[in-house]
Each structure stands twice: as structure tokens, then as C-alpha cells.
């Protein structure tokens, strides 16, 4: 008898355990009472269903229209400047490491009625443009001279991709992008270059429709660096739709 067989003999009394009938009945009943699981739908990557093309086209048109409506680089509309936070244009910005900025997990930031509401940002880093979906009630982009809010991070498993962490107001967002890629912005064609780092930016303020637009420009580098923030007007008793 081999060693394993010896142990098998010793433990034989334990191997005879069966499920008691009441428990068996209980499990059967539980299985019958459980709601049927939803059928698994496979994700269809391509071709897209016709219905989706409509929404994709609408999104593309909307973004083209939005971008085309933006003031040209350098346009300054000083009349809207006072609508920035009352405590000064950059005073609302807080240090990068401040705990109050840790909203990256997707918590909706608080809306302060008297503050303009940021509805979105484009980050222009080198030749790259990113749509950042930050929504934040207060605080404005700090000048890029104080760079801690902007970091370029390589994505480890995809060496040809990079991520940008941007702190805007009280939100921290990660934008991802890839290169090489070309894009056109305000009729200029930008080429991706991997080694761009912003040195400084300056601010101008414009207006698009009912939105106040803060544009960081003054592109000191060949391919340009900028941050475009679109803000809704302050929320009032009669909100702007």
C-alpha cells in the first residue's frame, strides 16, 4: 500500500459526507427563486450600429462648432475679466498636494453659486489637444510658471503613450494621449513632438456665447502650449440655459 493510500484509508470516514436533504431542497428553492441573469451582450466595436453613428456625428459636429467659435489666439475681451473669482485671478488656485484637491476619484465637486462653473477644458500641450471634462465651481488655472499642476507621465505598459495630470481649480484629471499624431487647431497644423515642456503661459479672456472663455496662450515653444477653459457664468436665481 503506498503512502497516499494509507492516508486515504485513515481519512475515509470524512469522505462520506453528503448534503442533507433539507439543505438540498433549500438550495434548489433558492436557485429557482433567483431572478434570471440578464443575457450577456457582446461589445460590438466595429462596425458601429447605425444608431450610434448619429450620436458620433453629432458629437463631432458639436466639437468642431465649439472649437470654431472660440476666439482666435491673442483675442482679449477684457469686459468679462471681473467675472473671475472675486479674490483674484490666480488666488483661488491651491497647492498641488492640498487634500482638498483630491477629487480624482470622480466625486462631483461642490458648486458655489456665486462662482463661474467650469464646464470644460482643452489642454494644449505641444501639438496635442485634450478635452478635459473637469467641472469645478471655483478656482482658475494657475499660470504654468507654477508648473506643479501639470505633469507628463509615461504610461508604463504603453511606452508610446503618455498621460498628463492636470489640476484645474479643485479637480485633478488625467488625460491620456498618444503620438505620433497630427491635429489642427485654429487652422494651424500641429505636429506631435515628444519632448515639449511648457515654460510659461499667459492668460487672455474671451467669450463664446454665454460662456466665458479663459485662454492660456502666448506660446513660447515651437509647437505651442495652452490651456483653454470654458466656464459657465455664475449661477444665479435665473440660471442661464
Amino acid at each position: 500500500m503506498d503512502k497516499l493510500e494509507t492516508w486515504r484509508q485513515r481519512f475515509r470516514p470524512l469522505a462520506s459526507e453528503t448534503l442533507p436533504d433539507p439543505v438540498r431542497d433549500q438550495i434548489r428553492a433558492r436557485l429557482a427563486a433567483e431572478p434570471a441573469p440578464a443575457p450577456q451582450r457582446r461589445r460590438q466595436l466595429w462596425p458601429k450600429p447605425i444608431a450610434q453613428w448619429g450620436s458620433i456625428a453629432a458629437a463631432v459636429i458639436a466639437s468642431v462648432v465649439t472649437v470654431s467659435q472660440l476666439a482666435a489666439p491673442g483675442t482679449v475681451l477684457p469686459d468679462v475679466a471681473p467675472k473671475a473669482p472675486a479674490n483674484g485671478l490666480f488666488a483661488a488656485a491651491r497647492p498641488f498636494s492640498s487634500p482638498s484637491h483630491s477629487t480624482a476619484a470622480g466625486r462631483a465637486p461642490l458648486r458655489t453659486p456665486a462662482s463661474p462653473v467650469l464646464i470644460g477644458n482643452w489642454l494644449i500641450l505641444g501639438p496635442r489637444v485634450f478635452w478635459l471634462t473637469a467641472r469645478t465651481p471655483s478656482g482658475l488655472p494657475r499660470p504654468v510658471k507654477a508648473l506643479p499642476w501639470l505633469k507628463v507621465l509615461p504610461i508604463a505598459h504603453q511606452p508610446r503613450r503618455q498621460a498628463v495630470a492636470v489640476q484645474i481649480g479643485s479637480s485633478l484629471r488625467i488625460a491620456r494621449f498618444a503620438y505620433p499624431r497630427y491635429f489642427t487647431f485654429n487652422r494651424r497644423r500641429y505636429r506631435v513632438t515628444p519632448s515639449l515642456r511648457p515654460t510659461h503661459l499667459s492668460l487672455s479672456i474671451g467669450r463664446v456665447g454665454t460662456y466665458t472663455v479663459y485662454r492660456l496662450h502666448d506660446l513660447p515653444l515651437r509647437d505651442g502650449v495652452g490651456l483653454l477653459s470654458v466656464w459657465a457664468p455664475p449661477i444665479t436665481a435665473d440660471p442661464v440655459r
Partner: protein
Amino acid sequence: MAKSSSEAVAELFEQFGEEIFAHVRLVVGNNDTAQDLVQDVFLHALRSWPRFERRASPRTWLWAITRNVLTDHYRRRQDVVPLSEVPEPAASADDPINRVFLEEALAQLPLAQRRVFILRAIEDRSSRETAQRLGWTEVRVRVTLHRAIKRMEKWWNGGEVPSG
């Protein structure tokens, strides 16, 4: 006509319920917990039935779920052993004292060793089948079984077994 998911899983329960219970019972060393866990296994199976792609046999799939349910159980439980989980002599056993002794012998093995020991030494599965059920390589099964037997021998002969 195609069977509904609950009918299909109920059929699997009839087919493999005992086998899974026997194994889980040996691993956790407690009837009530084992019954709960078997129910969990089949509820999980029912919920993930639409995702079951039939690449493996239903039995292999069920054993994978069992493995996960057991892992979750031990992760949740950590080192806390409720009083109700102290092995109790079963009414059906011929010799309750011997049974408690055997339960203790199994319980002193670390979880990985215990599972291999149960599958190989008690349930008489081959190394290959044990490896499949645990999601391990056969080499790992053999090495772990070797350690389990050494430890079990020590315990059986009244020697000191290292903790953990």
C-alpha cells in the same frame, strides 16, 4: 427548446452538488459553512451563466467558481474563527472521536496544503485533475502534496508542527 439558466444550473447542482459539498466540507471543516458556501457556488454559477462560453466543461467551470468562493471565504474570514466553526462530531460518523481527530488533522494544514491533501489523498484525484481544479501546475501540486504529507505525518505522530 433551450433550457433557462436556472434550469441549467439546477441540473448542474443535481449532478455536481454532492461532489462540491464533500470537498468544501473537508476544506472548511464545518457543515453549516460548507452548506452556505455550496449555495454561494451555485448562485454565482447562476449569475454568471450568461458569461459561460462553454470553452471548458461545466464541471471545470463549477470548480473554478468553487475555488473563487473558497478564496473569498478565507479572505473575508481572515484569522477570525467563529465558535460555530469549531469542528463538531457529525451524527452519521461511526466514531465521533476519531472524526474530530481527523478534522483537527486536516485543520492544522495550511489552506493550500489542505486543499491538495483533500483532493489527492482523500478524494483520490490525479495530480492532473487536482492541478486543473486548483488552477495550479502539476509540479506545484506535487511539491505542495509532499509538504502536506510531511507535515501530516509529523502531526499524526505527535510531533511539533510549525505554525502557519
